């Protein structure tokens, strides 16, 4: 009887066989997430309209192939989470600059996801000087050649932009 059942099952292509019976928490929107026509396309413009993501998924015969995807909800959530975190640091920095506690350099450092070490490496300005320039008094007195280096690091077109922290 069992062998009859097995031979009957083998008539079907592999993908139709219940290989997922062990899946304890049945939830159909993710049970066959790797099937090619069910690769998620949850677009939140995280790929900037510039490209799509290659995903591996199986076709009707259970054979793997590639499918282009615009995104997947859980991944979008964690990407958004990471950016919310960065943006909240930037916003805090902006407030501190406006309150006069920190120089605009601090705002741009946060905006470019840098710390003192990384900013120093990119700009070629020593760490202790970068730290000094995080204070408004010193930053306002910085040489134009120094400001120029910072502006280049942050992809700003002029040193004047260094003093605009986006009200």
């Amino acid at each position, binding site marked *: 009887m069992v062998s009859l059942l097995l031979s009957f099952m083998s008539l079907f292509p*592999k993908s139709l066989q219940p*290989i*997922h019976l*062990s*899946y304890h*928490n049945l939830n159909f929107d*993710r*049970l066959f*997430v*790797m099937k090619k026509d069910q690769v998620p396309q949850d677009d939140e413009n*995280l*790929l*900037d309209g*510039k*490209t*799509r*993501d*290659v*995903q*591996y*998924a*199986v076709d009707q015969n*259970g*054979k*793997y192939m*590639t499918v*282009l995807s615009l995104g*997947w*909800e*859980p*991944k979008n*959530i*964690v*990407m958004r*989470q*990471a*950016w919310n*975190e960065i943006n909240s640091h930037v916003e805090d920095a902006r407030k501190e600059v406006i309150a006069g506690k920190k120089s605009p350099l601090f705002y741009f450092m946060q905006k470019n*996801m*840098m710390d003192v070490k*990384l900013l120093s*490496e*990119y700009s070629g300005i020593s760490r202790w000087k970068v730290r000094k320039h995080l204070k408004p008094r010193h930053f306002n007195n910085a040489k134009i050649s120094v400001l120029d280096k910072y502006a280049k690091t942050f*992809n700003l077109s002029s040193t004047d932009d260094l003093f605009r922290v986006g009200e």
Partner: protein
Amino acid sequence: MQINFQHRMAAHCENGVITNLLRYYGLELSEPMVFGIGSGLFFSYLPFLKLNGIPVASFRPLPGFIFRRITKAFGIKTETKKFRNPEKAMKELDIMLDKGIPTGLLVGVFNLTYFPAPYRFHFNAHNIIAYGKENGTYLISDPIMETSQALTYEDLKRVRFAKGILKPKGKTYHITHVPENVDIKKAVVKGIKKTCNEMTGFRGPLIGVKGIRYLAKSIEKWPKKVGAKKASLYLGQVVRMQEEIGTGGAGFRFMYAAFLQEASGLLNEDRLWQLSEEMTETGDKWRDFAVRAGRICKGRYKTSDSYASVSELLLEIADREERIFKKLKDLF
């Protein structure tokens, strides 16, 4: 100078660069094949190494590993260079392109102008190929992009000398010689064995399935240890590593399953197909982990989405993968 080079997309940048380079030299292999032979499947959890204050869980080996392993397996001769002087590095690249040699480059993505903005973090282990220079613009094949790209001299120099962790230092690599006959079957077996060893055979708690278990146990403690907000950031980081551009889904599990399928045909071994299906199942579990973790990160708890439940799920994944790799190892 433009080389007759064919750009093709891939899920993972290093695989993609290798696949495209090998094809240029007449060795046609799929991305999963390159990934499997190069033993690209990996896991490590390094809680003491923090990126932006968040412990690092990695689903890939260090950049360059896959390239080194696959070329070694086939007896392909290569040349790798690093530079101190950016101008010299660019000059050397020009010389290579003049000779008509497509050249692999290690770059950072932060200043990579054509890259999707939301992905431009300070990440320095991206691989691209330069295959020509026209009017001072470099022609770039980036496996992550659907079409080939262009970069100016300044922009390319900048990304080749990105700063921060794992500085690329203008690293270039290219193929100098491909042997006429390569033994793919032998290389496949070797690649599988290596992956089995890495996933199950390392000492200490950080690497392979033990690393997954270690991560699982840490996750359960995170809310108490670092507070709800940080715990959710930590968890989000794991999911980002797992699903970010370039894994093909589920932290490379689906790609590895695709490799096992191909290997099954190549070696005429049905049990590899069976193990591929089991690998797909663990891939689904990783996806399930991402779904639940995502809901936790979003602050939408369901009763089943606690840190304890995702921790339990990871432990189950570790057990399953350990079984798979033990079975795989016993095949050869």
